[in-house]
């Protein structure tokens, strides 16, 4: 029954060292997951690297090896300027979104603020609103010409200088930060949920103020989540397209996504240049991930789910709860309700008109009728639902195994796995779509032109999110909880299914929700990969937008927000039934 281990080392801390035992479900599953990850991630990665060294090609001029792309991407002050703008914008966005998201996560999980049950779903709404709509709503709200806020200040207070200008770096950071704060919210909420409250209580008893506890204990213990959130937000910020295009462009604020966009949308399509830009991002992200992958090796510094009593609970913040409730209400009004109302208003019109008594007479539900009459509407929704649910589930399960390997074992080279699964974060959507398209056109296993290839694209695209969500929760699980299951004689698979997954619940659910929400909106690779009959919601949104059917788009946005909002409430209720219960 004994088997030798190839591992000659003497130092280890976890269960993972048993990695030499004869055939076992564990190795089958782990091996399978590794193969799948490698398969999924290497195709676009290889394509990206290859393209970044290839010149553009046409039928007449074949591609050749070149360093030109890098020279163009990083050689001129112009493109460096774009890069710099991007970095400023991304940093600002990430910082703002992180602060906001973390604050709400804290309020939601740690305080007795009133209306909390609405918090979770409400906080995620900005993420549901399609980026274009969200940005346009903000143009309507805070543009110097027609912005409602500005008008209010102009009319009511007689101001001549307008307080808000959405067309500025600050405006861009504001809009994008608000839009992506839910990412931080979800990640940090998950981390806060898996925290033995006695750690905070003991700080309180040491005389620390609520704020000191938050900064010195809660946030420090949630450090992996915060780091992960920042990394994701930063990369997202750099890749952000709608906000710079809609808000930066009119005032000449250009970022490097515009350069990628131009490169990709010309003929011959300069995928190489786009790839070269992406390679820079790849580098930044790798550094971030490398740093994160070293966190778990620092002992149990972040294990906050221990086997000695664990009762999540909120603390009473006294009168401050009215302040936090106030902030939350303001947030709901300005970030959730107003854009939503703008959409709702628009959806009830025949054309967009600023709210007025006159326009009130034109209210109609015609737009909703048009949306429902969209050819194959129900099929489209059904396709999106399948892809979103399927993709999210596959990603979260797959990455939970990968995270277990990278965090709970000492297998050499496990960081490579982490990298592989995390790097798709920086693949431009079109590059991802193209690589899959080209690969499966030439290596025909019958998935090209079906929903499967889209599923695959979604899985690849959202793997990195799954990784971050799962790993932050995984780090928090104290190893003894698995060890005690192993001592009970449970096999690895059983331990994973019955102990690890339920304890991962906060991260698992947060990631699952996030992926569902954003996959409904995924466009850049969907549009390349979908086939007749496989239309999805994002294509429909794009269609409305392209045709200038702003009203229908608003109506659809309203329907989508309502549907996803209800979905979130249901999930929130159901998810209380498994995993660690809240107090």
């Amino acid at each position, binding site marked *: 029954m004994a088997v030798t281990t190839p591992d000659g080392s003497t130092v280890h801390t976890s269960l993972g060292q048993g990695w030499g035992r004869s055939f076992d479900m564990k190795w089958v599953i782990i091996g399978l997951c590794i193969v799948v990850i490698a398969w999924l991630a290497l195709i676009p990665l290889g394509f990206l690297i290859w393209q970044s060294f290839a010149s553009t090609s046409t039928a007449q001029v074949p591609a050749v090896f070149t360093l030109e792309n890098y020279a163009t991407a990083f050689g001129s002050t112009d493109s460096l300027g774009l890069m710099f703008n991007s970095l400023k914008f991304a940093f600002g966005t990430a910082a703002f979104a992180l602060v906001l998201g973390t604050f709400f996560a804290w309020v939601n999980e740690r305080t007795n603020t009133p209306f909390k049950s609405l918090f979770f779903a409400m906080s995620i709404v900005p993420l549901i609103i399609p980026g274009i709509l969200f940005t346009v709503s903000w143009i309507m709200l805070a543009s110097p010409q027609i912005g409602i806020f500005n008008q209010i200040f102009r009319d009511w207070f007689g101001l001549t200088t307008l307080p808000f200008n959405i067309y500025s770096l600050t405006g861009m950071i504001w809009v994008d930060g608000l839009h992506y704060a839910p990412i931080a919210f979800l990640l940090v909420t998950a981390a806060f949920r898996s925290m*033995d409250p*006695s*750690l905070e*209580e*003991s*700080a*309180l*008893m*040491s*005389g*620390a*103020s*609520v704020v*000191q*506890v938050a900064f*010195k*204990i809660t946030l*420090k*213990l949630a*450090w992996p989540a915060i780091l992960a959130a920042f990394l994701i937000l930063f990369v997202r910020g750099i890749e952000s397209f709608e906000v710079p295009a809609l808000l930066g462009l009119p005032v000449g604020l250009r970022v490097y996504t515009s350069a990628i966009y131009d490169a990709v949308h010309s003929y011959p399509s300069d995928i190489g240049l786009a790839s070269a830009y992406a390679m820079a991002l790849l580098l930044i992200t790798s550094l971030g991930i490398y740093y994160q992958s070293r966190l778990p090796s*620092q*002992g*149990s*510094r*972040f*294990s*906050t789910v*221990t086997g*000695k*009593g664990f009762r999540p609970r909120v603390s*009473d*913040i*006294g009168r401050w709860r009215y302040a936090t409730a106030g902030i939350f209400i303001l947030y709901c009004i300005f970030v959730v309700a107003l854009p939503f109302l703008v959409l709702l208003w628009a959806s009830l019109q025949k054309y967009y008109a600023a709210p007025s008594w006159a326009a009130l007479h034109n209210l109609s539900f015609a737009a909703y009728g048009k949306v429902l009459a969209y050819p194959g509407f129900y099929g489209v929704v059904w396709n999106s639902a399948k892809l979103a649910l399927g993709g999210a589930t596959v990603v979260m399960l797959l990455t939970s195994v990968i995270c277990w390997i990278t965090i709970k074992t000492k297998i050499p080279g496990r960081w490579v796995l982490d990298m592989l699964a995390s790097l798709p974060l920086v693949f431009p959507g079109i590059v991802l779509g193209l690589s899959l398209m080209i690969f499966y056109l030439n290596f025909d296993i019958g998935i090209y032109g079906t929903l499967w290839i889209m599923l695959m694209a979604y899985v690849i695209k959202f793997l990195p999110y799954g990784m971050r969500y799962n790993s932050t929760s995984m780090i928090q699980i104290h190893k003894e909880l698995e060890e005690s299951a192993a001592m009970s004689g449970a096999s690895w698979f059983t331990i994973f299914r019955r102990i690890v997954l339920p304890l991962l619940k906060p991260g698992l659910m947060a990631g699952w929700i996030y992926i569902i929400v954003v996959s409904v909106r995924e466009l850049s690779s969907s549009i390349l990969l979908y086939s007749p009959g496989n239309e999805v919601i994002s294509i429909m949104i794009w269609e409305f937008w392209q045709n200038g059917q702003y009203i229908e788009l608003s109506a659809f946005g309203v329907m989508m927000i309502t549907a996803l909002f209800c979905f979130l409430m249901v999930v929130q209720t159901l998810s209380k039934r498994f995993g660690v*219960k809240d*107090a």
Partner: protein
Amino acid sequence: MLSVENLSTTYQAPGAKPVLAASNINFSVPTGRLFTLLGPSGCGKTTTLRSIAGLERPSKGVIKAHDTVVYSSAGNIFVAPNHRQFGMVFQSYAIWPHMTVFQNAAFPLQVQKKRLSGKDIRDKVMKVLAAVSLDHVEQREATRLSGGQQQRLALARALVMEPRLLLLDEPLSNLDAKLRDKMRFELKKMQRELGLTTIYVTHDQSEALALSHEIAVMNEGKIVQVGSPRDIYERPANTFVADFIGTTNFVEGTVRGGADDRLVVDTRIGQLNVNAQPGISIGANVSLSIRPEDVHLSDTAPAPSSNSLFVGTVRAKVFLGECQDFKIDVNETQLLARAHPSVRTLVGEQIHIAIDPEKCTLLAA
């Protein structure tokens, strides 16, 4: 200094029936005193302590510290835990895993209102770490400590802040006797020197007896007796206390007669002489408590005296180091006895028993 009146705390989990974990608790602790909550597992000690700390919100009652009301259900007053300036050791230690040993212990000093210089903090922390014998691992990550070391760190962290009120929840449960003695000594020293008012939760009777000025014995969420250690031990208010505070033999019987200030009680093991007590008349059914260490054993027959004398058969014996525990059958009733290790009678043999009338406690029935 601390007074607790009619305190009740209920746990309410969604979908489960509420658990009344502490009910109608009353006690007060004068400044500088060490007060112990003693009781069996699950009796509500931790709950009471957490309610005093402000970590649980009681359902009713009043808690005053230094004449300030920190909680009052009627007055709707609830002072946040971090404004109560109490120090606490948690039963689960609650060591911060992301800090080193030193950082854990220094935290209360770093966050307190009164700013201390880095050097002052260092001095104080090292002093208290030395007191709990952890100064040699000050730079180690707190999670890389053994169970007992973590517990000592938790104690150090509570002591370093010299709180107005110290709440200790089983602070020594994972320490060996030697170290526990040392810690108990350090604790007592600091407690007396600094005049720290302390509430001490323990399940260990001898610890409670050795440390406390006053003890409250709890059972099923209620306080069943409050008194000095000697009181509790020698005059248990009811069978639960007598039983809990130490092993004891309960013998039921009927009062047969009496002479001078002695009563004779007829029991299943035979006639016992007992000190007379007001209100107990001949014919009354009574219950007697006799502690095992008061059942004197001898290998040979003792000289006659006022003691009640019996002969029994040794059923079992356990060696406990400083003493031996015997189970002895006397007239088909079992008696527990604790004797010096020098008693050599073997299992199955006959042994002589003497019971001092002074040591038979007549319990309220």
